[in-house]
């Protein structure tokens, strides 16, 4: 069985890649993708811990896995809304460069 720290290391790596992606990419699609990556990094960490607790403990710890399902569902919903917004923005501006989307400020 793969020890938990490996999973956590992979999760941290994914989180870092996601964070850097959010900070450096200008295309909204890529920012979006990076956000998804960060979400899944968190999911991975959660299921890894959930597995560790259910192996060592007397009872199976399903709450971690349930939480991951909820996160997946919310992420899906967020993608639906977010992509919708993106499509609208693209239609209006023919661009998804997030640095150009700064009209709301004073």
């Amino acid at each position, binding site marked *: 069985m793969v020890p938990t720290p490996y999973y956590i290391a992979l999760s941290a790596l994914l989180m870092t890649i996601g*964070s850097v992606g*959010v*900070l*450096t990419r*200008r295309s909204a699609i890529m*920012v979006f993708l990076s956000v998804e990556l960060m979400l899944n990094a968190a999911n991975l960490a959660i299921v890894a811990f959930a597995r560790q607790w259910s192996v060592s403990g007397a009872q199976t710890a399903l709450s971690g896995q349930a939480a991951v399902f909820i996160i997946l569902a919310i992420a899906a919903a967020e993608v639906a809304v977010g992509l919708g917004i993106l499509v609208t923005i693209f239609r209006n501006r023919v661009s998804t460069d*997030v*640095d150009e*989307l*700064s*009209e*709301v*400020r*004073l």
Partner: protein
Amino acid sequence: MSAVVHWAALAPLLALVGSIVNAFFGRSMKEPLPGIIASVAVAAGFVLAVLAFIGLQGSDHGVQVTLWRYLTAGTLHLDAGFMIDRLSVTMMLIITGVGLLIHIYSIGYMHGDDGNSRYFAELNLFVAAMLVLVMADSFPLMFIGWEGVGVCSYLLIGFWYRDRANPDAGRKAFIVNRVGDVGFLLAMFLTFKTFGTLNIAAVNAAAPGMLYGSAVLTVIGLFYLLGAAGKSAQLPLQVWLPDAMAGPTPVSALIHAATMVTAGVYLIARVGAVYAMAPAAASTVAWVGGLTAFVAAFAAFGQTDIKKILAYSTISQVGYMIAAVGVGAYWVGIFHVLTHAFFKALLFLSAGSVIHALGGEQDVRKMGGLGRKMKLTGTTALIATLAISGVPFLSGFFSKDAILSSTLTSSLMAGNGGNALYILLLITAGMTAAYMFRWYHRVFAGESRLDAHAAAHLHESPRSMTWPLAILALGSVVVGYLGLPEFAFPNFIQRWLEPATTAVDFNHLAASTDWLLIGLSVLVVAIGLGVGWWVYEVRKGAPVAAFKDSNLASASRGALGFDALYRILFLASGEGVAEGIATLDREVVDRGLAAGGAGVGLLGRLATAIQSGFVRAYALAMLLGVLALIAVAALTGVLK
């Protein structure tokens, strides 16, 4: 006692309904409908008052109608209740009777005015408030009516509000009246503290049990006097009434001659029991009235505005009434209210008829000889002039004579200068005859001084205006016979009012002395009229022209300088304070706030620098924030 007396309590409501109908629906009505609605409302009130008058014939006591309790605070219970007794019914008859004639007159006078329905709404509201004032059974409700008539007076003085001077005059009346109202309020507070009740009948019942001449009763009496002086335009608060002539003339007749300005007389008559126990307060009332009568009569000589002469005359005549109630002759004071309501309303309405005919001219120097062109107006004005002068067998003669003799014989004036007051009022009677002769002669007699345009325009007024004149002229003659000299003749009004007012002792004079006093006052009136006739008819005003630049004449024109004095004392100092506050506001408050605002703006501009609008910058901030939280958690061990 019959139930009809209770119905009189509906009279204020009827006038109020008339006012509301005109206020909300009057604009869409065609003339003369608003005037007719208003007149019907007042006429209905008059019918109720007449029924109450008949119903009260057999009974000395009035009827108490309590409608509802509107305030309870500790031991203070305030009811909306009416006291319909002989005194209040007398006032109701004057208000609705003379008021009805003036309403009808107004239909003609206000014909074609933009504010026709507004005028009648306000006039009806005035009648409602005035009825509440005289019918109230407690001081607070009376005060509500008191303020109500003040508001209507303010509204109607400034009725033609497009000319700035008119609302200014209304404001002046309102503000001067506030001074009197403070007196009324303080009197109420002291009354409640002393008697534990604000019911007028209860106060009158309790007052005789108090210490005779005690300080608290005197102070209460003086505060009520201050209230009365404000509303009734007595010294030192008389300055508002001449300016109040800015309103339409029927308003001057109704509010500023026949009814509202007599509210102070009514108030003092109502709390007669307090004054009967406080001779110092009572004689102060009498002297204030006497001095006002004299000063205003003096000022009337110097005026050239047809209505201002009458305004000073009103102040002077109300001074007589105040003097009468001051000496405790309550029926006499109310009797003069009654006769004055007729002849002074008639004088004002005649003046209104003249102003109407001349297209707005009010300067008596540009009138003269109008009696030949306006026969009915001229005749009725002559009757009113003779009545107010005190010519025998007209109404003013009887009531003025009763006032004069009561100042001599009142027990309240014993040691308080009753004789001096008599002489002052007697001289004033002569002056009254002289200035009223001047008024009549300048307007209606002598040669015409009209300009060509006005002379061509000249016409007698329409019928809705001349009929009320004729009825009022009839009243100016006959109402005096209700109060024939009581030592020799049956006196209806004395017998009628005495059960409803406080009894004050009067010395009885020998009948020969009484006749002598009457002869004296007739002589003085004859001298007054004779001087007027000599100056204006025989010498064609030459003595006046020679006299014009003297100090006495300018003092009369300026009404002894009260206005000028108040301008210095109150207006100038008030303006100084206002100027100081304005400077403080500009230099300290405004600048401070501006500096504070600038500081906040600066902070805001700093804060906007953070809000770059770049999504990735926000993401970086979030990331750093989360990292910081994790670092804090890891280092301090909060998460464990």
